[in-house]
């Protein structure tokens, strides 16, 4: 399961997507919308994606995690559109034979996703909004 979607993320199905009889360890990262950022109170967020490219970058990340980071199965889902505080913005699941690899691959995936996948976040406060790309 590799997707960029406006639909709410169903974390149980992200986990189910990496299930298998041979991989004992599954690590899941869930990123939720926080009520604060950089010292300001956040009311909600907008996420925008360059859809086709974002999905192709997510697929490239999954391939790299399997080829070089010991991941047996990977699921990556990012939500777009307007999100409320507490909503799940991103979910990353990795199944591996050994838990050390599952932790390392999951960490690598979320770190690299944040550096490379064309998705943008606009934070909204009581007095307006700001694209995080534009934050000095």
């Amino acid at each position, binding site marked *: 399961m590799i997707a960029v979607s406006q639909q709410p993320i169903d974390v149980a199905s992200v986990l189910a997507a990496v299930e298998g009889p041979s991989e004992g360890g599954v690590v899941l990262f869930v*990123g939720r919308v926080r009520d604060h950022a950089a010292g300001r109170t956040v009311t909600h967020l907008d*996420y*925008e*994606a*360059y859809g*086709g*490219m*974002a999905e*192709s970058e997510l697929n490239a990340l999954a391939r790299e995690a399997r080829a070089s980071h010991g991941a047996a199965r990977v699921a990556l889902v*990012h939500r777009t559109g307007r999100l409320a505080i507490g909503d799940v*913005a*991103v979910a990353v699941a990795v199944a591996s034979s050994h838990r050390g690899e599952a932790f390392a691959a999951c960490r690598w995936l*979320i770190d690299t*996703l*944040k*550096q*490379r*996948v*064309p*998705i*943008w*976040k*606009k934070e909204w406060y009581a007095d307006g909004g700001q*694209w*995080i*790309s*534009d934050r000095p």
Partner: protein
Amino acid sequence: MKVLLFAGLAEALGAREVELDGAPPANVGELDARVREAWPALAPQRFRVAVNQRYARDDEALAPEDEIALIPPVSGG
């Protein structure tokens, strides 16, 4: 040549895509310079160029049918 815009860049120009007039730029570096010149609001912005949905280097050649996008610093996750 059509150029796709996202996030703060789209807001800066009030458009999700713009048309770069004149002959298509020969490569990515020339495209970068031409869009910054054509739209002064883009001049100070940070962005990378994606060609056909992949990050491109400045020396990458462009064809008229390529899908071009300006990618400001990403902030997913």
